[in-house]
């Protein structure tokens, strides 16, 4: 184990962001399945996603996918280039930096219509 520190946070966040995305995927398969029941049913249910609570949840989903993707690159790099193991810490800080750089403008653009 990592005995605490950034590596353990990277791992914990990776695990639970993955679970969150998977849970949403299952819901998303069900809601998309409603297209088979015609426009009335589908539009009514999917219309719920425009509610502000879901808009914020949507931004959370994007955050989970983005972190999982970026840290997944870190894990894959370390696995294929074992000498990078000693640099897992700076690589985690790189993941966090790129995450912040991409997430903040994305979150702003997604919530813009909600703000004014």
């Amino acid at each position, binding site marked *: 184990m990592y005995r605490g520190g950034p590596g353990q946070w990277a791992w914990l966040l990776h695990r639970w962001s993955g*679970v969150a995305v998977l849970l949403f995927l299952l819901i998303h398969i069900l809601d998309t399945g409603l*297209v088979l029941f015609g426009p009335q049913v589908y539009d009514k249910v*999917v219309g719920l996603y*425009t509610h502000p609570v879901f808009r914020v949840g949507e931004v959370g989903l994007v955050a989970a996918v983005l972190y999982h993707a970026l840290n997944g690159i870190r894990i894959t790099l370390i696995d*294929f280039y074992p000498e990078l193991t*000693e640099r897992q810490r700076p690589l985690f800080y790189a993941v966090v930096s790129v995450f912040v750089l991409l997430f903040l403008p994305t979150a702003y*653009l997604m919530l813009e219509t909600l703000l004014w």
Partner: protein
Amino acid sequence: MAELTAAGGRTRPAGKLELYAWLFMRVSGVVLLFLALGHLAIMHLLEGVDKINFAFVAGRWSNPLWRFYDWFLLALALVHGFNGVRVMVDDYVRRPGLRVFSLVMLWVLTLVFLVAGTLVIVLFQVPVGG
């Protein structure tokens, strides 16, 4: 938890199945990087949830390439997520009976959702006249 080398790196997984599972997670992960982030960028950033309705789906799925994109994303993400949870069951569920039960449930759930999702994408018919 995987065993670690002296330098802290991961050891080669024991057994063919675990090796393939490990490789699948890396390969599908890289593909999903493009498919999933692409999907989010298109549906949540360029389009936005308020534009997504039955007519939008019908327009999109009138092109078989989008159906294939969506199906490929669905299948890869589902199996990638399934294997992630399988590793978590390995880590956390210790009682033998509960362990077998969890793994069986996981298999069943994954298959049901994979079949259901595939059927939706295949069976959906674009209404005549768009």
